[in-house]
């Protein structure tokens, strides 16, 4: 399918119906070639029962697949195996905002950055809180933007990459319908405040920074309990580090 560049604003390669031709040694024809040779020898060697086993054995190599998720590269025996692998390893979903991440590490980074006011408080105080997303790099940054720049410069991420993407409509639907349920009695305002997508991060930071950040005083914000698995705010004295809150909110599909 050819790439069309007629629309300046969109680079999408639209479906173009064109005939496809293959060279005789193309893998596309491998099954047929194999069948040809086996059929001929079948007569001479009384292969019948074995033939299927042989076909399977030889075709197995062809179906092997490597996981395309960045940093994974797992080798899988077949397409079905890939699907299982993906569901097992790459669908960590946030129970707060339903965003999905391909690894639990990224999910936990997301939760800290998006749903943890403690995290934001530290940011406001100038700590390097934004971790590089590439496992093993270890660098941390003061702002989302500088971390982004690092990803682009050092790790060749595309400039359009957004770790913190706007929430997708299906999630919006779910969240809005959740809010409407009368059985839950949580504060609409605080849940609104907690919903980071609607507020610019800067706003949140400035709001949080207005809080009393002394060690012994817990924040007056309470995070709405939208669902039983939602985060409860734990006083700083009890927390063991930025990752702790995220444990309660991690769910795997």
């Amino acid at each position, binding site marked *: *399918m050819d790439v*069309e560049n*007629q629309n300046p604003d*969109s*680079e*999408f*390669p*639209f*479906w173009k*119906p*064109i*005939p*496809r*031709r*293959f*060279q*005789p*040694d193309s893998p596309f*024809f491998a*099954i*047929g070639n194999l*069948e*040809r*040779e*086996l*059929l*001929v020898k079948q*007569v*001479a*060697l*009384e292969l019948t029962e*074995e033939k299927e086993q*042989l076909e399977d054995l*030889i075709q197995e190599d062809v179906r092997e*697949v*490597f*996981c*395309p*998720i*960045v940093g994974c590269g797992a080798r*899988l025996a077949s*397409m079905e195996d*890939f699907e299982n692998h*993906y569901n097992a390893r*790459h669908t960590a979903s946030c129970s707060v905002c339903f965003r*999905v*991440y*391909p690894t639990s590490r*990224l999910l936990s980074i997301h939760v800290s950055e998006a749903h943890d006011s403690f995290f934001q408080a530290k940011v406001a105080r100038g700590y390097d809180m934004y971790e590089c997303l590439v496992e093993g790099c270890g660098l941390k940054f003061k702002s989302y933007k500088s971390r982004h720049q690092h990803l682009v410069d050092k790790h060749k991420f*595309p400039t*359009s*990459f957004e770790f913190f*993407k*706007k929430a*997708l*409509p*299906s999630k*919006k*639907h779910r969240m*809005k319908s959740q809010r409407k349920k009368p059985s839950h009695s949580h504060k609409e305002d605080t849940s609104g405040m907690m919903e980071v997508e609607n507020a610019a991060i800067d706003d949140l930071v400035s709001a949080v920074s207005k809080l009393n950040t002394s060690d012994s005083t817990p924040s007056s914000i309470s995070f709405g309990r939208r669902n039983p698995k939602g985060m409860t705010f734990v006083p700083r004295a009890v927390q063991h580090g930025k990752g702790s809150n995220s444990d309660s909110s991690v769910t795997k599909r």
Partner: protein
Amino acid sequence: MADPGFSSTKRDPIKSSVGNAAGIRRREHAVTVGKERRESLVRAKRLCRVGISDVEVDVESDMMIDEEQSILESQTSLAVQNLKSALAYQGKGAMQKRVGALQKLRRLLSRSEFPPVESALKAGAVAILAQCLSFGSPDEQLLEAAWCLTNIAAGNPEETKALLPALPLLIAHLGEKSSSPVAEQCAWALGNVAGDDEELRNVLLIQGALIPLARMMLPYRRSTVRTAAWALSNLIKGPNPKAANELICVDGVLDAIVRHLTKADDESATEVAWVVVYLSALSNIATSMLVKSDVLQLLVNRLATSNSLQLMIPVLRSLGNLIAGDSHATYTVLSPGLAVTDNAIQVMIKCLKSEQRVLKKEAAWVLSNIAAGSVEHKQLIYSSEAVPLLLHLLSAAPFDIRKEVAYILGNLCVAPTKGDEKSSLILEHLVSLVEKGCLPGFIDLVRSADIEAARLGLQFIELVLRGMPNGKGPKLVEQEDGIEAMERFQFHENEDLRTMANSLVDKYFGEDYGLDEL
């Protein structure tokens, strides 16, 4: 190429019971040699076990006991030595002595699934056998020598290269003055030499093997045509198109192809069809000439009347190559409205219904190329019984078939584009296919690990998002978990796919999506 029916009539009753046990032992031995066996089975080479079909040959005058491979190997060395001394002998009965020695060697090389090629080569068989091929030698001698070389040539490429000294002689005996069985046995040997190695193919071409082999396809004698066509298919398979280009230009070849595709028995037609496969895949000249003759029609007829998988594979593929290679095929020969076009589609449906994976896959490919034709072609396919079958295959078939079916369905929904114009949708087909439930199948492809399939899926989703009337597209995609499928690409290593998926999500599922419904 072996003919088990022939050998059973020749076997002695005593030996047949021994032969059965030997067969079992042979099979056990073979299974334990797993990888080697797989390789040898997959090779484009064929052992000659019982010789050319209508030649009276003394096949089994020895007891056919299955030997340990090592015993076979040592016996082979001895047989070669024996042959050397027989050649040296000049006295009375020299000819019989030579033929006897050749037969002994030939039998050793024809028994096991793994002929003792290595020991034969080590003992210097090639030089001796080349001597036996000298001009003026009696036919029986030539036949046995060529037979030995045939099976020696069935080894791996390194071993086969040792046959270089004998090649010019084998080629020489293809000539029209040779007796048919001798020429045929030499063709068989050369087919094995050409089978798996491009270098050897080039050597044979430079030494002039093409034209004499091509001539052997012309006469009517069945087994000659069959063997010569098979050897030719190995010789021209490329990837260099030169041989294919030359072959189609040899006088009488095109006519012979047409004749055999029309009249020949299944086995001969099979080998001729493989020649057409390589001609149509490699040579544009050949493709054009074949399309202009009646070959498309003949291929369609063969597919309609045959149920032999052996025959259907190359016939189907030839059709596929011709349609893919020459637009004239689709637009002129298979013009909508003509009977041949209806038959072609019917025959593809027959293959799609078959149990055989290769037939389903390649028929879907052919249909996808027809569906890439004119709007009338798309309508023709759309209104045939293909669609329900395709929808079923899209959800239930193995991956590679699903991918081909996806190409068909997508091609049905998009009108032919001229140059760089934006493609316009055939709404009737798109709406109907989506309503019939094709979307989940495409979204599955988006989720797969295969780049091409994912791309295809995303492109189809774009059609749905853009084209479904009343803006129903996004909702439909969401319902089938299409958004989740597209989200997967955020961390995908392929940048194109990431960009494609992101652009769709940004465009159709932006901030305003769904707001008006609440």
